[in-house]
């Protein structure tokens, strides 16, 4: 059976039948997006790879109960988001100063022309400085290409909350990145 030509729902059915190779194909398809989402949601904190691994293990163990009512990717993102917030809450309980760490925006600098790598770094820093929920909504919207409704499905937050988070995130980034070419 050629897993590469099957859609996600077919792969999940194969996985439910115990065909572990179907998991490898799902990993190949979505590990990059899942990792990007975890990295941006966790920002400067470690553990994005652990989150992605744990998310796929949950997919693996839940395969028999999966029903394709939503896109597989949206379901996977929701698991990733939940795991990231579990981790952030756990760090907060242990006294890690997340808020201070994450709230410091990069200093606005005079308009300048930077090398591509510097631009990418500055953009990453600006995203990392957003509050966690704004980071998550922005990442799903801008980088995963999800609509507002899909971001809502992937996070469990209301559509109106998503719209508000996105507007604030883009406005903040617009201010932070002003002058960057």
């Amino acid at each position, binding site marked *: 059976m050629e897993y590469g030509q099957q859609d996600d729902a077919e792969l999940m059915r194969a996985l439910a039948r115990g065909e572990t190779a179907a998991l490898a194909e799902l990993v190949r398809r979505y590990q990059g997006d899942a990792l990007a989402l975890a990295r941006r949601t966790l920002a400067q904190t470690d553990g994005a790879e652990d989150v992605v*691994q744990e998310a796929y293990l949950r997919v*693996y163990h839940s395969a028999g109960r999966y029903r394709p009512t939503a896109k597989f990717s949206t379901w996977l993102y929701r698991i990733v988001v939940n795991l990231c917030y579990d981790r952030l809450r756990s760090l907060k309980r242990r006294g890690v100063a997340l808020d201070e760490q994450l709230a410091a925006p990069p200093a606005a600098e005079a308009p300048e022309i930077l090398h591509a790598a510097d631009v990418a770094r500055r953009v990453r820093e600006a995203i990392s400085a957003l509050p966690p929920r704004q980071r998550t909504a922005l990442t799903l919207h801008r980088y995963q290409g999800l609509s507002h409704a899909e971001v809502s499905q992937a996070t469990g937050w209301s559509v109106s909350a998503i719209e508000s988070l996105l507007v604030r995130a*883009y406005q903040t980034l617009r201010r932070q990145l002003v002058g960057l070419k």
Partner: protein
Amino acid sequence: MKHASDRELLDMLAANRHAPEELARHLDQCAECRRRLEAYAGTWDLLGRVGRDDIPAELAEGIMRAAERQGRPAGRSGVAARLWASVGPIGRAAAVIVAASTAGFAVGRFTAPAGPRHTPAGRSVTSDEVAQAVFLDELATAPLGISEALSMATEPQGEEQER
């Protein structure tokens, strides 16, 4: 028309589409909204310059190793799943009734008061009944679902086919 909302401007950028007619007319006439749209578009483009994240080569391997360590997912086994899918809804209902009956029989058999068991006069126990009792003993050792019961019932046939 009132000024364009942030959401309308962001939706345009996200969908990479032209403004709807009414919004387009407003943008033509409103320098303030055009300025906001251009600012958002600039931010949108900058965000796209982050590039793809590096994926550590060992991530996929780690996931597959962990999955193999933890065993098969909690679904129906291959033989049982195929059988379950092939019998149709009536067959599945019948299988549930048979499984419930046999489980009830097994429970009754092991919870009946101790004492001599009597075989009806003139009837001897057949080897098939002994075999069924052994099978029910297996069922009674742990609460089993229908898929497990089906797989127990079908596995010997599969082995015979392979031979």
